[in-house]
């Protein structure tokens, strides 16, 4: 009996963990080429979540259908953000770029707060509380869908990176930008691509968030932190690592929430984060062939 509860906790952890994972993959892509941790990632996810929410509340578009609009829109937004905000400062180094990300996060958060108020939102579809029963365990339908979406997103990005020339260029530039320039790869090109994909993934995660959690304008910051934790655990600059890190984080959180009261579960997550950063910053899954950074 107890084992089936533990298993249930595990499953929930894996399901929510993939959401962190997909946010982490976006971070990982951007980090690979621009060498900054894009702190505003979580806030963009929330922006997309609001998009999905308003499409549903005002026009009645089902969130899973809204993916068709939101993901491409996020993609284009990513290109726009890079060209508009980051392109000029990319040359100035990581410091200003990091600060712009920080500023963007603050700007978007407060903008959403002013426009949408701080009330928590969630998309309440007719099937929101539907749960499947598999092997004696209840699995929430929307969480399962979020899981599927995350996997699909991961697969899409992996295919892009492995099979297309641009994807290979991104991988090359992530490993060594100087060498990439020697074969004619322009930094701005790969930066734009990773930004676009990073935002696209954020859009996907946003729809998933809207269907599974309540959110408010300031949830983004915590989401970013969780994604960073996932990335730190899994290894910066590694797509698979990001996903695994996210899942691991989800599982740790799930068990912590189960065994500990209230807010301590979050403390555990951050404590793990700090410990990993302090003592094994290359992550638990890093398998980089080039010399350790």
């Amino acid at each position, binding site marked *: 009996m107890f084992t089936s509860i533990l298993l249930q906790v595990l499953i929930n952890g894996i399901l929510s963990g993939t959401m962190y994972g997909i946010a982490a993959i976006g971070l990982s892509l951007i980090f690979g080429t621009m060498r900054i941790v894009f702190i505003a990632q979580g806030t963009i996810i929330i922006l997309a979540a609001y998009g999905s929410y308003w499409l549903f509340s005002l026009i009645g578009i089902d969130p899973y259908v809204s993916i068709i609009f939101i993901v491409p829109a996020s993609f284009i937004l990513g290109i726009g953000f890079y060209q508009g905000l980051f392109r000029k400062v990319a040359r100035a180094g990581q410091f200003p770029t990091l600060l712009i990300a920080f500023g963007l996060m603050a700007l978007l958060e407060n903008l959403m707060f002013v426009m949408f108020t701080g009330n928590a939102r969630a998309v309440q579809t007719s099937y929101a509380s539907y749960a499947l029963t598999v092997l004696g365990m209840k699995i929430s339908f929307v969480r399962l869908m979020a899981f599927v979406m995350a996997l699909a997103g991961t697969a899409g990005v992996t295919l892009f990176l492995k099979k297309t020339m641009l994807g290979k260029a991104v991988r090359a530039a992530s490993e060594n930008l100087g060498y990439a320039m020697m074969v*004619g790869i322009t930094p701005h090109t790969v930066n734009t691509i990773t930004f676009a994909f990073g935002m696209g993934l954020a859009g996907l995660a946003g729809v998933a968030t809207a269907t599974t959690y309540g959110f408010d304008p300031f949830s983004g910051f915590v989401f970013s932190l969780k994604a960073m934790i996932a990335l730190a655990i899994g290894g910066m600059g590694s797509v698979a690592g990001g996903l695994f890190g996210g899942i691991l984080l989800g599982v740790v959180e799930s068990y912590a929430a189960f065994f500990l009261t209230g807010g301590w579960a979050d403390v555990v997550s951050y404590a793990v984060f700090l410990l990993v950063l302090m003592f094994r910053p290359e992550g638990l899954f890093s398998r980089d062939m080039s010399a350790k950074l």
Partner: protein
Amino acid sequence: MANPLLSVTDINVRYGDAQALWDVSFEVREGEVFSIIGSNGAGKSTILRTLSGFLCPNSGKIEFFGSRVDGTSPMAMVNLGISLVPEGRGLFSNLTVLENLELGAFPKRSRPLKQQSLASALSLFPILARRQSQLAGKMSGGEQQMLAIGRALMSRPSLLMLDEPSLGLAPMVVKAVFETIMILKAQGMTILLVEQNIHQALRVADRACVIKTGRITMVGTGKELLADPEIHRAYMGTLR
């Protein structure tokens, strides 16, 4: 006499307050192998970094096929037809041999001919054909050097620049590398070679120059410099 392919005139390069190159001038003619020799820290790598677009000379000019190229970005340089094999090979260790080669054809002008270039690179270096799916980081030094040269050829350059190709390689492998250089020259490639291995560098060179603390001190044909007693004394110790 035909116009030189590459013409470097009085370039000065400074790193902050330290000057690395002083009034450096030389030219590379089409179809020849031109070697730059000198000891560590003399400025050889600085020259290549400047020629490949990573550094902008503080003064002087660089002309490629008669047009000014000093200050151009590295990406534009490759697109113009100047390809660099950097010191340390410059490979993407996490990518496979094939992927490294494919990326060599990334510049726009070389993309239409990618399959052709790939075929000739693989026939020039059969070992690469056998190891296409291996990660570049897992290969031996000699194999990596072949891959690096192969990748540089993928961009169909008019000028191939090699930075210390013999570095860290066993003598047998070094021999193979220089044989490859001779083959490429026979195919009509113009090669600029920067080397610490004086003997090999001068042996394959049509013309060469010596750089010492940022200045060109001698210019001549490969044979001339090879026989020069000063060079023997300064660089080759008791080799002969």
